[in-house]
């Protein structure tokens, strides 16, 4: 095992361990923007990096149930929806088992399935997913920006509006990326690694 492949196996658990450290956790949960746009995405990245540790029999049998990565992307979407509820954010701060569920489900049910599914997803599946991500970012961003009330009891209104603006910016960035890809990128309509 080379140093770089050993690093590839262990960087996921390493990142997860850093995120779970109380000072890091406290800092990343101190504002709703850090919580939703830094901590949760980093937990998903930690999960994505877990994919080299998957046992071989799983990597052999899963694709039969996950054509074009569709099942995995459905799973990712449902779990993401759950962690987008303002109520889940409050509960993660107030109820210990919800926090545990977040630290388990975001890597294992979002990052990891995305790592398994994304490479086998073709242009159409990726396109549909990204368009839905853009729509969700715009919808949620707009909601957070215009809501006169705090949606999370544990975060300030200004913080919430900042999150709204950031989500609109992220949606716009993905839009530009998609537009760029459509105009100048290489499109493989049949799937990058079709099985």
């Amino acid at each position, binding site marked *: 095992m080379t140093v770089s492949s050993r690093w590839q196996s262990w960087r996921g658990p390493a990142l997860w361990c850093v995120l779970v450290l109380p000072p890091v956790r406290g800092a990343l949960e101190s504002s709703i923007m850090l919580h939703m746009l830094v901590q949760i995405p980093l937990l998903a990245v930690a999960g994505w990096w877990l994919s080299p540790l998957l046992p071989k029999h799983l990597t052999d049998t899963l694709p039969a149930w996950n054509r074009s990565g*569709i099942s995995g992307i459905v799973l990712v979407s449902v779990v993401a929806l759950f962690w987008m509820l303002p109520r889940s954010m409050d509960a993660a701060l*107030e109820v210990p088992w919800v926090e545990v569920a977040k630290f388990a489900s975001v890597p294992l049910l979002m990052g990891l399935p995305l790592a398994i599914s994304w490479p086998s997803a073709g242009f159409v599946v990726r396109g549909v997913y990204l368009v839905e991500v853009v729509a969700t970012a715009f919808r949620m961003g707009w909601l957070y920006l215009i809501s006169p009330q705090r949606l999370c009891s544990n975060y300030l209104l200004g913080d919430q509006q900042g999150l709204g603006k950031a989500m609109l910016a992220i949606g716009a960035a993905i839009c530009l990326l998609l537009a760029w890809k459509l105009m100048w990128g290489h499109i493989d309509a049949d799937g990058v690694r079709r*099985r």
Partner: protein
Amino acid sequence: MWVLRTLLASLVILVAGVAALAVATDGFRAFTSETARRIDVREHPRALPSTPLQTADGQTISFAELRGRWVLVDFVYTRCRTYCSIQGTEFAQMQQRLAAPIAADRVTLLSISFDPTRDNPAQLAAYQRRSGDRGAGWIAARPTSASGLRALMGVFGVTAISDGLGGYVHNSAIAVVDPQGRLIAIIDWDKPAEAERYVLRGEAP
């Protein structure tokens, strides 16, 4: 074959996911913890702890002693210059509008401080004076211990966070406690008329 299996797997995930979301949002009714707290209180009235409270005139009371009448409760900190100062004025105005049931011992207004280290009886009294206290039927009080404060904030579902300027931001509301001493409703802080109707309708069903 693969298409069918993928379809099946996706459907199972989707059904399980929608079911989980339904449970997590009380049947798609509560997307915020504030709505969830209101629905839960309405559907499952909460018994209140007999936490001792020290009032502005130095006496000690508890919810047990207030049984037999409706109690409208809000949580405040007296240094507040925004919401809570409006809440104080609002409670003083309710005190005036509810003067008759208050005189008949059927209604009491109660403001509880969630900042008891600063809000001693003198501060609580000054807060009531500033707000235009009419003299009877409005109690301002503070929990006498940290555990008592935690217990009260827990059962009422009150969250107070630092506003970064030395004050607090909190989920202000008017909590309705029935004559049996149970928390039965939570109403928007700026809708005192709703709280009054609740109390008056409860008296004459």
